[in-house]
């Protein structure tokens, strides 16, 4: 007989099915019952052998917020693992996620409201009841309401997402204060600003499931990423199963670089330049694809033809030859050409980048170069390419808003500091409070935000928090005594994420949204309390009406309000299953091509930009709409309907952010031009780097796989793995300074000096020093800092503390990194600091 192949296999199957209908009709099968295979979602006690209680919930160690299962035995949380039915995570969790258990039971956990009784920083505390704590807060907030100055109440948060964020905004709206500080500008703000100026949205993910080629600029994808577990496993699978190459440009041999097809060392701050030189190669060798051109604007002309656009792009990048890029970046011209060709010729390709690319001077513009490289090869929002992430769109309850709504202008940086601070300039919040010219809050409440650790020049931040004349009343919600809470007037014991309710919404790399919830695995320990419940307690005291009384109720309402989730069974379904997605949903590849009906009442075509917009929705008359045009009417962008693409109205890229733009990808940006920035992606040398002396070095920071920036030092399993951060320095750079591996060294910048240990290695380019930014904790409990916290419990509460074998806790580099912002986005320029290094 013939050998079976795919074609005759299918034939045989057709035969099998018809024979089965006849054959098994009489023949009793041997096997009965039904298959109950389940990987994950079940676990057993090693002692009693009984099944553990399994509760679906979600991780919150990092922003990825993976759906997971918690296992509980006799009321104690014993284990965390991935949720087997999550389409994002495919049942996996990283080391940080698994160590989440440590948050609940670490010995220095704050479990009661604590009132300061000594001077700020004197570490003298008195335990108070929740009633006392809330009465005290209300006594400070009520006068602000009465005086019509709600803005003098500032809420400063770090990691709030999903319902934790929406409930906070709801409360602040009900109070009337817009003085809300975030942290995105110290994280990745420039990336989003760059994308928003083009895309009308933000948050790129990559379709690794279908990609054929991956180029990575400065992203430590395999160790830490904002969508880590969902994306890194897919990239690894693409590499292992389909031999997809991964080229990583980085100053340091990160574990991602080490696992790549090739690590391409690159000089600091040169990612954008190399990307532009890749554009140069692709354009000049005619390797580009025209498909996306009609959605791109590359010159002031909205109606340029394809040929004119091609000519304009070529002209823009003409000077960025591979040879020029080689001189500046250190990457050989031939390597640039090779990777550019491979990238352009691949059927589909992903261009990834992150902090290494964007936390620089003009970092937002470097992200625009990354988008350009994706667009000219038709790898934007296409299968196998860089795609706009899709998250869950939860509906949430809304409380009545206060009549007076005001905010202090202290979250967007000093006047003139940043042109488009759409993700704030949070590193300057405390310096601006110190400065005082835009006002100061009277009540400052921070939650999950360690200002005195995470910002540049963190010693200055610490001093501001300590100064009662600058911040008269300071409340800190926390689970651990840290660099910031030590100066609070009142510490509120927060629940851990394993003890609270939330709706969650992090984007899915597959283009299909996953709705999931977080639910308490155990009762909150001690008197710890969720922020949502604290808002409710305060609202009662302040006479504010809220749409919920508990966080659980808030989440329940969200589940019952959200289409899809509601029909699946709402809150009860989500409690039982934890995750839900629409099985009929299709990935959103090519969403921009969707045809749009423009026959609606009030929809007109703006000839200049090619935008269809609804002047009625914008609240102007037709005459005014026509005379002023789409760009001339304030708020017209919110009335955007479609973009005229070669005579057809299409969805294109709607201006969904604060950027006023057409539906085209604004590679030529009037917004940028108007503020004096290059309208087309370009290479702008970093001023500090231009002035470097012979002996100066670059200082860069990085993350390790087992820690978040500031929230995991007290997790004993993680700190046992990683608790120290010697400075990486190239052997040649070290030899020039007489430094040997293990030597103590001094690293000095213009604002300070630290002493640390040298890790001499070939795994970093010469001329720089790299120090990870998790360590050197003043406080973070016994495991993070070596010091037990001055709060009840302390290290004696954990017999395991005796087994702690490490006594090194590293050094924090932020005290020598100044707060300086990307003038475009306001992002903190972590990677631009210049230092001098010498043997200590």
């Amino acid at each position: 007989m013939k050998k079976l192949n795919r074609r005759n296999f299918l034939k045989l199957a057709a035969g099998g099915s018809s024979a089965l209908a006849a054959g098994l009709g009489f023949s009793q099968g041997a096997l009965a019952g039904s298959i109950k295979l389940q990987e994950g979602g079940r676990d057993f006690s090693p002692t009693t052998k009984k099944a553990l209680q399994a509760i679906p919930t979600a991780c919150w160690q990092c922003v990825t917020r993976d759906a997971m299962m918690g296992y509980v035995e006799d009321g104690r949380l014993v284990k965390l693992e991935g949720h087997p039915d999550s389409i994002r995570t495919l049942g996996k969790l990283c080391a940080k996620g698994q160590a989440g258990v440590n948050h609940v039971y670490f010995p220095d956990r704050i479990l009661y409201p604590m009132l300061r009784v000594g001077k700020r920083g004197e570490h003298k505390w008195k335990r108070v009841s929740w009633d006392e704590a809330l009465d005290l807060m209300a006594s400070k907030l009520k006068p602000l309401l009465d005086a019509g100055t709600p803005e003098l109440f500032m809420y400063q948060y770090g990691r709030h997402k999903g319902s934790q964020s929406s409930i906070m905004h709801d409360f602040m709206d009900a109070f009337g204060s817009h003085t809300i500080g975030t942290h995105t500008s110290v994280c990745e703000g420039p990336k989003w600003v760059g994308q928003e100026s083009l895309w009308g949205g933000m948050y790129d993910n990559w379709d690794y499931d279908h990609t054929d080629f991956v180029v990575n600029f400065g992203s430590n994808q395999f160790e830490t990423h904002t969508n880590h577990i969902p994306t890194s496993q897919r990239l690894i699978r693409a590499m292992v199963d389909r031999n997809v190459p991964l080229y990583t440009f980085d100053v340091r041999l990160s574990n991602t670089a080490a696992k790549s097809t090739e690590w391409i060392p690159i000089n600091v701050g040169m990612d954008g330049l190399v990307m532009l030189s890749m554009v140069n190669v692709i354009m000049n060798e005619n390797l580009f694809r025209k498909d996306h051109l009609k959605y791109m604007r590359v010159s002031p002309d909205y109606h340029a033809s394809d040929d004119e656009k091609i000519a304009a792009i070529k002209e823009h990048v003409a000077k960025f030859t591979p040879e020029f890029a080689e001189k500046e970046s250190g990457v050989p011209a031939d390597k640039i050409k090779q990777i550019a060709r491979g990238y352009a010729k691949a059927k589909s390709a992903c261009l990834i980048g992150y902090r290494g690319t964007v936390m620089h001077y003009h970092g937002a513009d470097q992200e625009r170069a990354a988008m350009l490289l994706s667009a000219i090869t038709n790898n934007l929002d296409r299968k196998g390419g860089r795609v706009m992430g899709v998250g869950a769109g939860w509906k949430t309850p809304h409380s009545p808003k206060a009549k007076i709504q005001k905010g202090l202008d202290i979250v967007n940086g000093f006047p003139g500091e940043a042109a488009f601070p759409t993700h704030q300039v949070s590193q300057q919040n405390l310096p601006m409070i110190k400065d005082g010219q835009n006002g100061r809050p009277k009540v400052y409440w921070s939650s999950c935000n360690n200002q005195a650790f995470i910002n540049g020049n963190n010693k200055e931040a610490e001093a501001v928090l300590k100064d009662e004349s600058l911040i008269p009343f300071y409340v800190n919600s926390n689970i651990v005594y840290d660099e910031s809470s030590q100066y609070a007037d009142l510490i509120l014991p927060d629940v851990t994420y394993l003890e609270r309710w939330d709706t969650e919404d992090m984007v899915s790399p597959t283009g299909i949204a996953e709705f999931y919830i977080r639910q308490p695995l155990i009762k909150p320990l001690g008197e710890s309390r969720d922020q949502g419940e604290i808002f409710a307690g305060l609202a009662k005291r302040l006479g504010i009406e809220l749409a919920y009384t508990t966080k659980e109720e808030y989440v329940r309402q969200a589940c019952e309000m959200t289409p899809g989730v509601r029909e699946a069974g709402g809150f009860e379904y989500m409690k039982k299953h934890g995750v839900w997605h629409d099985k009929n949903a299709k990935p959103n590849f090519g969403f921009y091509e969707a045809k749009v009906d423009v026959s609606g009442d009030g929809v007109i075509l703006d000839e200049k930009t090619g935008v269809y917009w609804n002047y009625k929705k914008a609240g102007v008359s037709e005459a005014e709409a026509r005379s002023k045009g789409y760009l001339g009417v304030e708020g017209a962008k919110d009335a955007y309907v479609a973009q005229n693409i070669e005579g057809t109205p299409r969805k294109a890229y709607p201006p969904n952010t604060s950027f006023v733009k057409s539906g085209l990808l604004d590679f030529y940006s009037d917004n940028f031009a108007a503020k004096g920035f290059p309208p087309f992606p370009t290479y702008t040398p970093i001023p500090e780097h231009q002035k470097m002396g012979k002996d100066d070095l670059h200082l860069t920071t990085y993350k390790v796989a087992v820690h978040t920036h500031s929230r995991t030092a007290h997790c004993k399993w993680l700190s046992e793995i990683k608790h120290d951060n010697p400075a990486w320095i190239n052997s040649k750079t070290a030899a020039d300074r007489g430094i040997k591996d293990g030597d103590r060294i001094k690293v000095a910048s213009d604002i300070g000096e630290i002493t640390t240990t040298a890790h001499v290695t070939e795994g970093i380019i010469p001329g720089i020093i790299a120090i990870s930014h998790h360590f050197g904790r003043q406080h973070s409990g016994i495991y993070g800092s070596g010091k037990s916290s001055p709060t009840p419990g302390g290290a004696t509460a954990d017999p395991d503390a005796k087994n702690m074998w490490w006594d090194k806790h590293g050094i924090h580099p932020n005290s020598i990194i100044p707060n300086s912002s990307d003038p475009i986005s306001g992002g903190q320029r972590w990677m631009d600091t210049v230092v001098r290094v010498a043997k200590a």
Partner: protein
Amino acid sequence: MGINWKELANNAKSRSDIYGLMSTVFREEPSGDLIRDMRSPHLSEIFADLGVELGERFYTDLESKVMEELAIEYTRLFIGPGPHISAHESIFSEMDGDMSGLWGVKTVEVKKFIETTGLDYGKDFTGLPDHISVELEFMQKLTEWEADMWHQQYRKRAEYCLTVQGKFLDQHLFCWVDQFCDAVVHQAEIPFYRAMAELTKQYMAFERQSVATDTAA
């Protein structure tokens, strides 16, 4: 999610149907229904296409005669008395002493494997747990369940099911099915079982490749 759920479900269902057919063929003497269906233009065409030669008389003799002859051949080949092929994994596995033979170590392993997936041996089933038809039926059920998981878009469960299939094939079916088929080819006196054994062997070779790819997917 970049996954063609329908295609994956259909693929698993196809495998299930083929396992089902083979399980039926080796379970017991063919029924009139099965013979009628295999002689239908639809199936005979497929077999002809694949080069599966059931013999001219399978198609031309009276159905009752074919049934009778196949019943005799089945008994002679697989039941005895006298020299026959005992269609059980433990007979084919090379183990010392009492470890092999009927109800040997392998039989217990197969039984345990099947039972840990939630399935059970039906109360009317009088055969031994590691009969070739049981192992093929087990694969039929696993692949059917896999198809259902793809259909419901449970990727993790479907992939896990593929892993379980891979394990069962590697630890059991693949270890002896070729030898078994060769023995049948060698000892068959009429073409039907020879052709079916050849087809089974071919299909297992195909599975070796495709399951290895699938489980890695």
